[in-house]
């Protein structure tokens, strides 16, 4: 008989099943829908910044294109690739956890974390470069010069860097939270908590991780690429 402490109405139910769900399938669907609804709110959270970027880029096109060309495209491209690989390893972690392959799950989760940390490390190098060149908005901002013409950019280039730091900063914050979530998954996976029957936490963190990747998929061309044809 099932233990009394859980007060589960259906005896013999799997331990992962909360008592208010009829079965694990419905529980998984509810978790998934809840996660997607959270991600929808995130779309609108980032959407405000994307809208601001679109408007100001249209109204101050030359400042934005010139300032965009000052970003390090090589590092930006490497980071894009790092994130895509991390999405692959995350997808493989979800796949492995759903098959009860404990060692593979732990391996793919740790790989995902290493790639996420690499992304943040490269982002740190980029940020440091911006600080060294006084391209960070604020009292120490110095209006940068166009890479080609060597003329000073319009004053609104500071707005580009404000949006650059807000958008990449918010994205980096999501990455840091993601790293925390994945490290929590590593601990649970090592305890063998995920199986063919139940891997919802891996699945849900996977959704989050891929979503953060999608944000970067848009940030990369918008911030790094949209002025390159003017060079």
């Amino acid at each position, binding site marked *: 008989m099932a233990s009394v402490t859980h007060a589960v109405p259906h005896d013999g139910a799997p331990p992962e099943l909360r008592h208010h769900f009829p079965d694990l399938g419905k529980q998984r669907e509810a978790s998934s829908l809840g996660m*997607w609804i959270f991600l*929808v709110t995130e779309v609108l959270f980032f959407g405000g910044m994307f809208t601001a970027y679109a408007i100001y880029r249209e109204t101050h096109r030359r400042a934005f294109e010139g300032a965009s060309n000052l970003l390090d495209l090589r590092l930006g491209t490497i980071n894009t690739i790092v994130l895509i690989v991390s999405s692959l390893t995350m997808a493989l972690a979800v*796949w492995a956890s759903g098959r009860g392959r404990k060692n593979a799950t732990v391996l793919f989760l740790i790989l995902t974390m290493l790639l996420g940390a690499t992304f943040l490390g490269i982002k740190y190098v980029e940020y440091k470069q911006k600080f060294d060149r006084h391209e960070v908005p604020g009292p120490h901002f110095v209006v940068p010069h166009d890479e080609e013409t060597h003329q000073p950019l319009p004053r609104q280039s500071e707005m580009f860097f404000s949006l650059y730091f807000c958008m990449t900063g918010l994205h980096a914050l999501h990455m840091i939270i993601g790293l925390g979530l994945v490290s929590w998954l590593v601990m649970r996976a090592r305890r063998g908590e995920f199986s063919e029957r139940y891997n919802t936490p891996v*699945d849900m963190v996977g959704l989050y991780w891929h979503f953060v990747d999608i944000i970067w998929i848009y940030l990369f061309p918008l911030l790094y690429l949209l002025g*390159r044809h003017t060079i």
Partner: protein
Amino acid sequence: MSAHGKGHGGVGAYFGVFLTLMVLTLLTVWAAYQHLGIWNTPVALGIATTKAVLVALIFMHLKDSPKLTSIVVGSSLLFLAFLIFVTASDYLTRKWIPIYFR
């Protein structure tokens, strides 16, 4: 019920999407340097959207999720479109009435 990947094409599909994402990333960097006139931005956003759709459909299993999930995702895109369209319809039409700038 339960675990993912059953009859989803599984790992093979993941590697296919991964390779496509890599190619599209290099393609968008290359395209950014081409002189496409007004088309540079649409091409960049088109490639980004293709990548995002692939990630959502395959990595995030949207393809094999209940229809309700797709409706939820669609609602977010609808409201994002409202947000951008309504804001742009203000800012980008202000010059149509020149008196504001005199």
